[in-house]
């Protein structure tokens, strides 16, 4: 593991420990009250979900067109993180929506395309696990299509009439809520980096195992 890993892990842990206090200090939002505080974990998770999808797509493209095995490992790790952060987003969202909108779920553009992107990430993992030989390339092809979905999820709220808040809400937040949000966002970003590096490490060890098995056979 690289040298920056443990210090960064320490910093991230501290930030996550501090986050609830900062979140508690932020003002209440007028219509939604307490439940709006889910926002401070929901929005960064969603961002990390989209980031994972994009990282997976870019790594897959580099793997497909340059054949770099390291990029393949990064793609696999990013896909798993996409499933993780996507799950967090798709659970915290409806929990918030139940109070804010009165419904657990609605088939508007953003929710539908997010769910679809999450399913693509799942499909990636299934292909890697059960696809047999050559599945790394198949999954890479799939990831490219999934990456095309990620920007669409982001801009969809701005161009369609949906029940989900637009992206223009974030820049217009007042100072205390903005601080809480960005603090949380940075924590999640650091966590994403850590988890990605950790997961890639696992893949590297697996690759090492494969070479050792090959060496044994000789």
């Amino acid at each position, binding site marked *: 593991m690289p040298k920056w890993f443990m210090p960064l892990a320490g910093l991230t842990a501290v930030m996550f420990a501090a986050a609830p206090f900062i979140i508690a200090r932020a003002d209440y939002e007028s219509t939604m009250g307490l439940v709006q505080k*889910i926002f401070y974990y929901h929005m960064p*998770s969603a961002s990390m979900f989209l980031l994972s999808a994009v990282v997976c797509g870019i790594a897959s493209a580099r793997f497909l067109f340059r054949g770099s095995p390291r990029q393949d490992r990064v793609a696999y790790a990013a896909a798993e993180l996409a499933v*993780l952060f996507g799950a967090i987003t798709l*659970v915290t969202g409806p929990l918030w929506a139940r109070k804010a*909108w*009165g419904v657990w779920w609605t088939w508007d553009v953003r929710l539908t395309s997010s769910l679809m992107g999450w399913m693509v990430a799942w499909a990636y993992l299934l292909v890697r696990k059960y696809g047999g030989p050559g599945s790394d390339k198949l999954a890479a092809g799939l990831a490219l299509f999934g990456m095309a979905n990620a920007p669409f999820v982001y801009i969809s709220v701005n*161009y369609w009439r949906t*029940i989900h808040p637009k992206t223009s809400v974030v820049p217009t937040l007042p100072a205390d809520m903005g601080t809480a949000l960005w603090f949380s966002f940075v924590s999640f970003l650091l966590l994403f980096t850590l988890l990605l590096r950790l997961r890639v490490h696992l893949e590297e060890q697996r690759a090492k195992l494969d070479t*050792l098995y090959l060496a*044994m056979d000789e």
Partner: protein
Amino acid sequence: MRPSLTGICVLFLLVVSMPVACSANAPSRSAAQQPQPQPAPPSATDEFVPISQLPAQDQLPAAPLLVTAYAFVWVALMGYLVSVGRRLTKVQREVERLESDIAKGDRT
């Protein structure tokens, strides 16, 4: 017939701007088919509405939802860390076993 990366980006930008150009025709029917949300100020989806009007509406208590949400986040993240950690120790143990086997094989 290999489209260049620049071509792809231009194409993608064109594609993204198409719904924008067409939404000027106002697909109004889709709005009517969506479930009506709880009464909330329409501007809340466009910009942040600071603490002011609106008394709290009658409904579900928010605390269980909030707690469940945060708890889920923590459980999911911890669960994932545990999963990766477990897989990692398994692989590392296997690596060590193989390495010692190979070393023993070299010695004999």
